[in-house]
């Protein structure tokens, strides 16, 4: 994936003489100290990151952490005090006003926390606004607006005014308005925070659905860890204007950069972040169909395990043999195929642990984890699922069990 946006040492300071503050921060003065001594607020300090084409990049932090300030730097609603922002390789920070207008009109659109709708215009009037100011003909822009209103599921509401709609519907208008410009980049500033939990969940899924179809580069702000980890391909955590950690949700949970982040993610519902492949164990022993029972017994004895998966030549799972079955089988001169148990559960590598709980409880045997080509890549015991839910460090627990 190519890099779409690159931030280099971006700082944003509010106050009368913002530039004078940069050296102070470099000397290591804290945000509070600077505010007390100079009356300047450090919004963002030294943020660097790369955002890839087509990903959902979530910026997460508590209120006051500078996340809303940072997202406004991407379209220069806040002009950074220091640093560069490259979009498609071009530094936009020093763009003149007409270049900036071009970027805003064509490349970036934004969705706001409190929707930012124009309440003197109808839904249609809102959605077509971005096109209207580009002087696109009325017919053309209304056609595009109607398409986008349909995409967000508001067909039939074109002539309503924003105050006649519910919060969830208003934010759909906000989303349609942003999409109507067909931007490469979508900035979303806590778009679902003002919605009630049920609607929020619905909107999150819908966003993922729309993203699947449209493949925009999305920068998404939230203070909600669960939301961040649910929709983010990668997540940046901010504190006091600084970016403390950037990584995939799994990386952040597995290796929080500091106590702040550990604290932040303490309440996260791990079962909805971790997938089968994160809690599974790679099998040391596998038995092939042609190997026979003696090999199976030997494998189990050597690895000190009580059952082993049987695969064919393409590593596709055929079933499992237990040590008891195998020994009885040898005594009774049966073949591997005779004692093979096929009533096993197979799960995909990207199934969430949340969905695995029931399966591990129902199954007598370990769960077999397969990849997209249905090849066996690991297995999961009941205890792995549980440890994945509670432990601070998943790897540690797995080693302990293994």
């Amino acid at each position, binding site marked *: 994936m190519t890099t779409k946006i690159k931030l280099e040492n971006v700082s944003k300071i509010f106050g009368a003489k913002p530039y004078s503050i940069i050296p102070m921060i470099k000397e290591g003065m804290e945000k509070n100290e600077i505010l007390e001594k100079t009356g300047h607020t450090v919004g963002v300090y030294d943020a660097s990151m790369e955002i890839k084409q087509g990903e959902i990049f979530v910026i997460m932090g508590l209120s006051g952490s500078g996340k809303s300030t940072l997202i406004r730097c991407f379209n220069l609603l806040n002009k950074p005090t220091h640093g560069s922002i490259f979009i498609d390789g071009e530094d936009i920070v020093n763009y003149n006003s007409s270049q900036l207008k071009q970027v*805003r009109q064509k490349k970036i659109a934004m969705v706001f926390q409190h929707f930012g709708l124009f309440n003197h215009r109808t839904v249609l009037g809102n959605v077509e606004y971005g096109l209207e100011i580009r002087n696109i003909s009325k017919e053309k822009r209304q056609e595009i607006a109607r398409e986008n209103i349909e995409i967000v599921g508001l067909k039939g509401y074109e002539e309503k005014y924003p105050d006649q709609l519910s919060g969830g519907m208003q934010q759909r208008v906000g989303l349609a*308005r942003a999409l109507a410009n067909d931007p490469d980049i979508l900035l979303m500033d806590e778009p679902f925070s003002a919605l009630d939990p049920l609607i929020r969940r619905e909107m999150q899924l819908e966003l993922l659905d729309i993203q699947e179809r449209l493949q925009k580069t999305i920068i998404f702000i939230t203070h909600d860890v669960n939301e961040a980890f649910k929709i983010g391909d990668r997540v940046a955590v901010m504190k006091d204007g600084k970016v403390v950690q950037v990584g995939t949700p799994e990386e952040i949970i597995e290796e929080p950069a500091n106590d702040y982040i550990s604290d932040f993610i303490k309440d996260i519902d791990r079962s909805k972040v971790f997938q089968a492949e994160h809690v599974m164990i790679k099998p040391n022993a596998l038995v092939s169909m042609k190997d026979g029972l003696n090999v199976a017994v030997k494998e189990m004895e050597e690895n000190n395990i009580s059952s082993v998966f049987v695969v064919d030549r393409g590593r596709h799972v055929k079933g499992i043999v237990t040590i008891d079955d195998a020994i009885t089988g040898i005594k009774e001169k049966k073949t591997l195929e005779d004692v093979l148990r096929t009533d096993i559960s197979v799960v995909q590598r990207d199934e969430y642990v949340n969905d695995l709980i029931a399966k591990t409880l129902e199954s007598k045997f370990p769960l077999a984890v397969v990849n997209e080509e249905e090849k066996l890549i690991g297995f999961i015991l009941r205890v792995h699922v549980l440890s994945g839910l509670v432990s601070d460090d998943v790897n540690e627990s797995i080693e302990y069990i293994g």
Partner: protein
Amino acid sequence: MGSFPDITTKLGDYVEQFVDFLDLSLEGFFDFIYIVSSQIINSIETALVWMPWWSFILVIFLLGWYFKSIFSGVLYSIFIFLIGTFGLWEDMMTTIAVVLTAVIISLLIGIPLGVWMAFSKGFSTVMRPILDAMQTMPSFVYLIPAIFFFGLGNISAIAATLIYALPPVIRLTELAIRGVDKEVIESAQSFGSSKWQMLRKIQLPQALPTIMAGVNQTTMMALAMVVIASMVGAQGLGEQVLVSINRIDISLGFEAGISIVFLAIIIDRVTNGIADKLQKHRRVSE
């Protein structure tokens, strides 16, 4: 003992000299204003007088009905009819023409000034004390330079009325533009609106209900100036009040006075009704 020392400043003289200077150097400007105002006031008055009396009452009824209720429409029509029965029909028309002209000019000057103040902190700081002075200076005081520039008559009255009635629309326009929701402004910016597009398509429409409140205030203040303005020769209902004072004519004074009250009620309710309608729908076509 204890009396004020013999120090005098001649501030009044300086102002007088300044007014003289203005009269000489800006003669063309004042002529221009005179001509424009006379044009506006004459065409309004001609139109009003040309209208058959019943059609004027019908218009008032329709305004009341559309912006308030059918009851209001009927009530306002009765008010107007009563003024006619006092024998003050023509005076009323003159007063309406003077007030309307003053209001139209106030809006033409006031809204752009208010917008400018909203955008420029410096200009706003300069304007504020001036607006305060305009509102608190006793209104008789501007009558004198008004006569100086425009002579006796309706135009002087309008000029004096303007000074008194202009501040509310300026203030409320500034307030309204500044008060537009920050996120709405940001969202318009984020789509790459130019300043002009932002003003025309977002800020002014969003500010309109509050600006209408300013228009209401301005209109009421213009009406309040009617009697005072008659001292510089404005005709109409105010003139009748003045005449009744001179003659100690209670009956004429009351009739002319209550006519002004009737007009005030109608104008206030109708402009308020317009503001409410805008607030409710917020629909402004481009």
